[in-house]
């Protein structure tokens, strides 16, 4: 039985770095100029794009964790895949929600079925399914194996989602940053966007580390409880007190 250990709180340094990064990004997003066409709406981009970037990053890390688990059968990789997928689903949802808020005044509708939007929604639901699959499977080894297969297959969607705007004519604008020629964005805006991406990445790292720690503690707790089950003595099961009533 592995002895449960106390939760190690994340080093204060990492939290401070994350807070500072987010603050810096927020200031840059605030002082950067309004867009010539969109006006102030452009500021949604400074969260929308980093959130979408984190979705890609998170699901690639889930792939890494899944492959790592299948190759080594070490649960730390499974926890990495799980933590990253949870954070990824959250940020995919955030990117979709912010996109909708931006789309209503810009396009005139909350939602439309162009390739980028539809594929992003499908990616969101596939990884939501990944999390539901994890919830539905109790046995850790079986859960890790099944989830790993889905975590590997799911990653196929990332290039589809990202390049959908290049391969097919969509309503969604093509990429501004990751494209063959130089980014088509004014300098201050680019700085604000890059700062946002950097800050979100730091936050992502913090969240995943925290979530993995939590998963490890849960696993330890379950293991501790399971080992108490067989010998009746222990904290969970004690001798009945009913005898005194006789």
């Amino acid at each position, binding site marked *: 039985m592995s002895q449960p250990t106390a939760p190690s709180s994340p080093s204060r340094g990492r939290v401070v770095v994350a807070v500072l990064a987010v603050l810096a990004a927020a200031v840059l997003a605030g002082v950067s*100029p309004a867009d010539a066409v969109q*006006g102030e709406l452009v500021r949604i981009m400074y969260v929308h794009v980093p959130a979408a970037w984190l979705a890609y990053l998170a699901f690639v890390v889930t792939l890494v964790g899944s492959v790592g688990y299948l190759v080594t059968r070490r649960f730390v990789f499974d926890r990495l895949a799980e933590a990253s997928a949870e954070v990824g689903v959250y940020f995919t949802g955030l990117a979709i929600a912010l996109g909708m808020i931006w789309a209503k005044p810009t396009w*005139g509708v909350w939602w439309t079925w162009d390739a980028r939007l539809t594929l992003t929604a499908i990616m969101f639901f596939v990884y939501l399914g990944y999390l539901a699959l994890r919830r539905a499977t109790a046995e850790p080894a079986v859960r890790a194996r099944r989830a790993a297969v889905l975590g590997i297959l799911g990653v196929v969607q990332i290039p*589809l989602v990202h390049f959908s705007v290049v*391969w*097919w004519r969509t309503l969604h*604008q093509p990429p501004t940053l990751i494209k063959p020629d130089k980014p088509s964005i*004014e300098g201050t805006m680019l700085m604000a966007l890059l700062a946002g991406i950097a800050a979100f990445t730091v936050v992502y790292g913090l969240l995943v580390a925290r979530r993995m720690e939590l998963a490890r503690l849960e696993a330890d707790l379950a293991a501790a409880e399971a080992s108490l089950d067989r010998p009746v003595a222990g904290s969970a099961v004690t001798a009945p007190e009913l005898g005194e009533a006789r």
Partner: protein
Amino acid sequence: MRRYAKFLVGAGILVAVLGVLIVNLNDNLVYFQTPTEVVERPAGDARLRLGGQVVPDSVERTATETSFLVTDGRVAVPVRHVGAPPDLFQPGIGVVVEGSWDGETFRSDTMLVKHDENYSPEDPERPFTSP
């Protein structure tokens, strides 16, 4: 590791199939057609989406309608949009209009403004104005 060889083969086939799909589905996955395409392929009464830039100086507004030309740089199509256009609608911007042919004009009832990938400040001279 032999077990994963099968998995890799499967993944390879999947990627290949997806590649073929991406190339072949091109026509079906586009969100809108360009003016050149709609002129070359007459659609009859069918509804379709037409996308392009609004030709500057072609916009005429009345109380209920907005008329303008949509171009892809080669062909310009006259569009009559019924209803209020979105706030961002302006000469030179990209639009996608949904509707059908009414003679030589494209009659639209739904208009989406298509933003492009270029971001530039309102006033390039003063990039650091706070909002």
